[in-house]
């Protein structure tokens, strides 16, 4: 009896470990949009190019009106966008978000740069 309980407990622990590893390692598709958009009747214009880092990975250059895609694993993500302003200076914006397994994220850089909510939309699988 005791042996069976230990066996069942071990199987449950292993399944839980598997689920944990799946959540931690699941790769997510993240679209980065630098496009004009309308959000709750407010229009946001794509005016500048951005250098974007997702979770500290390689930089992604997103020009005006462009969309790029990156892949990043795990449930918790950080986006660091560096906006290249017309006067030659830069401005850094940081956003954080989390995704469930199977989610795809779309980040809108003009909205993120404005500091308003709604810069992230999540689509399930």
């Amino acid at each position, binding site marked *: 009896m005791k042996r069976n309980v230990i066996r069942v407990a071990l199987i449950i622990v*292993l399944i839980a*470990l*598997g689920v944990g*590893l*799946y959540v*931690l*390692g*699941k*790769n997510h598709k993240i679209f980065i949009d630098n496009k004009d958009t309308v959000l709750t009747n407010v229009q946001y214009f794509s005016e500048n190019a951005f250098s974007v880092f997702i979770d500290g990975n390689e930089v992604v250059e997103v020009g005006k009106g462009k969309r790029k895609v990156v*892949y990043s*694993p795990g449930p918790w993500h950080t986006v660091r966008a560096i906006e290249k302003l017309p006067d030659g200076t830069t401005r850094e914006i940081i956003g954080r978000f989390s995704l469930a397994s199977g989610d795809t994220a779309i980040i809108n850089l003009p909205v993120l740069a404005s500091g308003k909510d709604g810069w992230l939309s999540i689509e399930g699988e």
Partner: protein
Amino acid sequence: MKEQSLTRAKNPLVRFAISNAVPILFVVLLIFAIPLSGFSSDYLINEIITRLGRNSFLVISLLIPVMAGMGLNFGIVLGAMAGQMGLIFMLDWEVVGIPGVLLAMLIGTPIAILLGLLAGTILNRAKGREMVTSIILGFFINGVYQLTILYGMGSFIPITSNKLLLPRGYGVRNALDLLTIRKVMDNMWVMKIGNISIPLGLFAIIAALCVFVVWFTRTKLGQDMRAVGQDMQVAATAGINVDRTRTLSIIISTVLACFGQIIFLQNIGTINTYNSHDQVGTFAIAALLIGGASVAKATIPNVFIGIILFHLTFIVAPRAGKELLGQAQIGEFFRVFVSYGIIAISLALYAWRRRVEKETERRRAKAAIKAAMEDKVGG
């Protein structure tokens, strides 16, 4: 008579040379081949370090069945197949990095346990012929594996990724890219000394496995395995469940081979779905034998000496062949010839030693009986 005097030589140097004939032969071979190849020492050291990390786990997985008297477990291909199935699921679920490798191991483990159980049960019915049985068992399970991967996956085994499936909608493609986990274990913790990179993280895992093997030999189960390996009848008389002990040794070996194949493939960066596992047993066994192991005795130093010598031969043989004969292909043939040839030589040497030992024992027993009878007659 001459054979006996060779194995029972009094000169320790001669004894050492006889018992380490294979590694010495390879050292001599390499002394000539390395300068001929023209490779720099940095390149050779880097290659050897990479190959030590890549192959050690697979070769160490052979130690426990040798301890249990089951010879060289050609059935580690079963574990390799289990590991590859784990990797296919990991790729389909798009799990990447270290969690991906661990998940592949987790998925591969129950498959490896089941295959190990099957192998152990069959090998228990073929006592004394374990090695040839495990070779044939590997061929048989290879057929089942190919059937499962080619027809089962994508039809009744859910695989959804189009990157993995053949255009017809079921069956896995011939080559799969492991870019998402490529060298993640090698790059976990790396130390650089000049031009040489040492994957300390991976070496720490291999060291932990070595510690596990040493610890395991001192446990009750490890001692039982040794007893079974020395004499099954004596072990059974002592109350050891011989069949169970032998089966456990094969299960442990298969599970370790499953992990070993995953570590091997994450280093390579691609899976050849239908034949990555084919040569695993042969190459691991050849490396262990070149390290000075035999069918009846294998230790951790044999593993590392063997990998270094075997893979150095692998690296330098094509170039040495090219320099010497103008054709790299000859070096390639040479290394295949070396792998199979060394297994054949080692097995023949082992059989010869066993025959000589038995003959010596028989002569001693005969002499003892003769002496006892003379005493009786004299008394």
